[in-house]
């Protein structure tokens, strides 16, 4: 039971650590989010390699997205994505109504402006996982009311 708390607390410390080190340098705010996202990217690549070791080959893009929503999310956050929508043209919206990393923060509109910092790592996680599976994408997140959040994945067709 304790290992969920481990990652949560570590993640919070990572975010505050990155922002603290930014205060000393002359770095603007945007760079911190990028740093966090890149961290998530590398972690996502390694995680996907481990998780797909034993699964069957994926038929198509939708299959991959479903894998991310179910197995990947379950293994990392112990729950599945609540809602997956797509316009069948390369845009997917993953909605999580009770995002693990935000539940401890607030249950409404308080601290809304800080939420994006805590979502950057997870955006990178999704992007890294997809990139290792051969899909280039851009992942953004938005929060309208904690702890629900939406991740928007835009697949880039080459």
């Amino acid at each position: 039971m304790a290992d969920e708390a481990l990652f949560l607390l570590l993640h919070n410390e990572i975010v505050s650590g990155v922002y603290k080190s930014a205060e000393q340098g002359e770095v603007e705010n945007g760079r911190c989010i990028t740093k966090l996202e890149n961290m998530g990217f590398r972690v996502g690549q390694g995680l996907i390699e481990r998780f797909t070791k034993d699964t069957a080959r994926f038929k198509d893009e939708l299959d991959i997205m479903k894998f991310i929503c179910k197995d990947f999310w379950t293994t990392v956050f112990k729950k599945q994505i609540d809602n997956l929508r797509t316009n069948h043209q390369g845009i997917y919206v993953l909605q999580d109504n009770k995002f693990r990393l935000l539940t401890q923060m607030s249950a409404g509109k308080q601290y809304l402006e800080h939420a994006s910092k805590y979502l950057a790592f997870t955006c990178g996680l999704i992007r890294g996982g997809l990139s290792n599976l051969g899909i280039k994408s851009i992942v953004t997140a938005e929060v309208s009311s904690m702890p629900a959040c939406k991740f928007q994945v835009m697949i880039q067709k080459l």
Partner: protein
Amino acid sequence: MAVCIAVIAKENYPLYIRSTPTENELKFHYMVHTSLDVVDEKISAMGKALVDQRELYLGLLYPTEDYKVYGYVTNSKVKFVMVVDSSNTALRDNEIRSMFRKLHNSYTDVMCNPFYNPGDRIQSRAFDNMVMSMMIQVC
């Protein structure tokens, strides 16, 4: 026992090639290179057939020489190619599969190593040792 083992990235450049240093290694490099085409063929054909992860026994690519080339593709499009000497005991399917499983496990460990950047050549000693243990010891 394998004669040559190669790990090829999804952009089709080699991440790792190792062959037993008997004669010219170049021959093995060419074999691995040509086997990539066969691998691609199989992947595209497989979409209609069964959706299975393993992909092995590409068969003799060079009928004149007595080698068998096996292939295996992970979900992240990384290909493992193994060249086996078929003049020695005919290796069973299971053995080849277990060798690929070991390869895949070691590759996953390399991937999770924070000092490894995906796309670089594999320089991990543990991976090296595992591969050497699968190859013939020819003095």
